[in-house]
């Protein structure tokens, strides 16, 4: 136990300041009332859905959980079921084989719900585009509120996208 405690003290606090929301990332107008957003802002739950990505975006979504970005410190956490979620964080180009699963996950998420599309492939199909196997961008399959570009987007950009989705235009 002693080496663990010693290491924790030696490491100290690494968490950096969270980014500000960026309205440029929003693709559809904010539908939620301020009252709901205030609640989300303090306790947002996210269901991540890989709808066909190369797993690059997943690496960076993992990273927003690390001590530097510390997403849980902002009251935001990833949950194991869409039924527990306020937001879907979707990566991919949506593969045709994941189209139904993504729609069902969206339907299983209770209203009010938000969708943030992560990465170039989720934004416009990316290098994979649309094909016999790909539906292309996430918005071709479910409604999207905020899009975060990048291949993959850096953790700070992902965090910014999430925070944008739960903010209102000032």
């Amino acid at each position, binding site marked *: 136990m002693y080496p663990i405690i010693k290491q924790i003290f030696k490491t100290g606090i690494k968490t950096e300041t969270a980014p500000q929301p960026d309205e440029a990332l929003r693709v559809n107008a904010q539908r939620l009332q301020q009252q709901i957003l205030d609640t989300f802002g303090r306790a947002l739950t996210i269901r*991540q859905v890989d709808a066909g990505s190369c797993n690059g975006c*997943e690496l960076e979504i993992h990273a927003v959980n690390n001590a530097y970005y510390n997403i849980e410190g902002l009251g935001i956490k990833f949950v194991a079921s869409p039924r527990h979620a306020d937001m879907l964080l979707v990566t991919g180009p949506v*593969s045709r*084989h994941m189209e139904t699963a993504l729609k069902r996950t969206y339907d299983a998420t209770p209203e009010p719900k938000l969708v943030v599309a992560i990465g170039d492939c989720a934004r416009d199909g990316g*290098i*994979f585009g649309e094909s016999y*196997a790909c539906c292309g961008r996430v918005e071709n399959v479910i409604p999207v509120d905020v899009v975060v570009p990048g291949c993959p987007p850096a953790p700070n950009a992902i965090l910014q996208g999430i925070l944008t989705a739960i903010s209102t235009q000032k």
Partner: protein
Amino acid sequence: MSITHPNLRLTKLAGATPAWMGDIQAQDLQPICQNIHDGGGRLVALWGSDRRATQQGFALHTLLVNETGLICLNLPLEEDHPAYPDISRIFPAANRMQRAVYDLLGIYAHEGGDHRKWLRHGAWHGGSFPLRKDFNAAQSRTDELDAYPFVPVEGIGVHEIPVGPVHAGIIEPGHFRFSILGEKVLRLEERLGYTHKGTEKLFESMTLQQGAKLAGRVSGDSAVAYAWAYSMAAESIAHVTPPDRALWLRALLLERERVANHLGDLGYLGNDVALSFGFAQFWILKEQLLRNNAALFGHRYLKDKIIPGGVAADLSAESKHVIEKECAMLEREVRLLRGIYDEHAGMQDRFIGAGRVEPKLAARLGLCGLAGRASSQAWDARVQFPCAPYDKLDVQLATYRNGDVAARVIVRFDELFESLRLQREILVNLMHGDELALPLEKLPGNGFGIGMAEGWRGEVVVAIHTDTEGNLARVHPHDPSWQNWPVLEHAVLGNIVPDFPLINKSFNLSYSGHDL
């Protein structure tokens, strides 16, 4: 070449990886495979190609490996009856590969015991084949739901737990069907193919340079390994050897990719046994490495830094110093954390004995890469077939024989330290002033080349066929996950369901690299 067979004439392929190829007849496929198998060799990859444009029907390409190198057997198939002898009885890993080759190209194994579809779900009709040159995407389109005949397990008290494709974490999609008795797993059956993106078809419409980008996105966590294997295959066709400095830099990037992934996995393996301290610590280290990658090379995951002909990144003298400092820091911190992991009774209690794959079973099923080495399968392309610059580095193989989660953790630690040593050695050898890349715009016509790189998960192979004009006619990337996914089904038998996430993580296989 240490394989002889009456009808086999092998020719050596140019390039960094020792590889031979030869045309064979259908009746020779099984005997040659048996011969390689009996000599301790393995099946690496299996794919098909459509050569009807040049009136050559179809072809099956079987890539084997033994102690001397890779052997690619090309078997021509008739256009009307594109069938070949089943090799899944010799190499069980061939089962899913053969089924995938049918789904994508419509060539099939005679007498194969398992004819269920594999990569095809409901996106295209059963009778249409995406990798055929005359495939019509619009006409083949369906929106069927996937109906897949899982093997049912019956008996008193047996029940099923279906999991996925959307999993309960930040993971890629796939379906696992558990048959359970009490808490114990009686059977696990995997259903993959959810992330099928038509990657192989996409290569055929790309230039050589675009293809390198796509190769880096076959499996995002192995961007360097794929880009290197792809470039190596292209360089083999073009008879080009990249400048020395480029080769040293490629090895540096590959080892950094290995360290990043091992750090991440070691953190998650801590998390999966409720030691969140481990996750926090290892991911701080990983983040520092990724930030250095971004600062030194311009990308956290080093994507698009390896290009056909060389590299698209350089390292200044000051940057060398950053890596030296980072290696020293990681060496110190990881040693400390390893001590904590080793001493932590609760953690070792979960690790030891969980998800065990005996060496004998590993050899039978062809378990490869990191997981293979944790079950005494002593294969590492950097050791057996050290292409430059590994021929000057004397890589130490990390193996362990217990084959459980604990063994896969040990191998990760050992390989991580070895990668740090290799990085330091590379920095010493990295001379300034050399070119970074030779021009490689286009490949010669009717070429064939293979590239192999030992990624962090295992051997990544890319094969390239060019058409008469030198365009990409067929590109086949192969992920070691093809071999290792079926072994996971065995590893969990008799374990309790709550240990599945831990066992799964200890393998950490790629879905995207497998589903293509």
